[in-house]
């Protein structure tokens, strides 16, 4: 695997996982959304923009989208999709490390299966057309 492919996969996985965790943390500070009317949602969205965690999370998710888009110009979707499922593992580990969440036996089994699956997919050629990677 090219180092460029490796770097972009790492950016996609980490920015998506950390972005979602940070955004979720920030949004919890905004408080419950009591109504789902468009006006109430817009108000919540505007209010959340004043929260630095929300801004950081949004920036990370924008980085994720840019890196994911570029990566798909030279790597198979089926490869990117499956390898980036490592994000689930990262979220579970981050939750345990920073939010004190428990990892149940079922989740450990999930972590094991995903890791095994990703190592299998990672051993295949990233690009069907052979170009770029």
């Amino acid at each position, binding site marked *: 695997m090219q180092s460029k492919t490796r770097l972009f996969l790492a950016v996609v996985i980490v920015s998506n996982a950390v972005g979602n965790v940070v955004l979720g943390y920030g949004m919890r500070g905004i408080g419950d959304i009591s109504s789902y009317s468009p006006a109430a949602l817009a108000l919540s969205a505007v209010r959340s923009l004043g929260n630095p965690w929300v801004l950081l999370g949004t920036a990370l998710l924008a980085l994720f989208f840019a890196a994911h*888009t570029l990566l798909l110009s030279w790597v198979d979707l089926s490869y990117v*999709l499956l390898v980036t499922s490592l994000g689930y593992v990262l979220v579970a580990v981050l939750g345990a490390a920073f939010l004190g969440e428990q990892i149940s036996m079922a989740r450990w089994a999930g972590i094991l299966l995903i890791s095994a*699956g990703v190592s299998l*997919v990672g051993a295949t050629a990233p690009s069907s057309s052979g170009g770029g990677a």
Partner: protein
Amino acid sequence: MTAFLLAVVVGGGVAGDLLKAHAMRRQGAPQSTAGVAMLRSLAAAFANGWFLASLAAYSASFVGFLALLSFRDVSFVVPATALGYAAETLLARVVLSERVGPRRWAGAGLVIAGVCLIA
């Protein structure tokens, strides 16, 4: 209603990925690894109809997700997400003609089982 919204959420996400992958494959890899080339490649995507269609699909998925959140707890979405992995891998093989050999299929099976357990 729940089933319909679930189909919009998962289907929109899968369609968005497929459309975007098709758009970016047509466009080709950035000229170089320089940041400027990357930005130029991203800017060019916005002139690509397939890419714009992918944004529409992602948007539909997101709106469906918000609508679903408004009346259901989202934990039940997970099995559908795992189904999305299977559908997307299959469609990448059929629609985008990607080479998915036995090893990648086996990996997909493990990932899908793992996502069911973890999420």
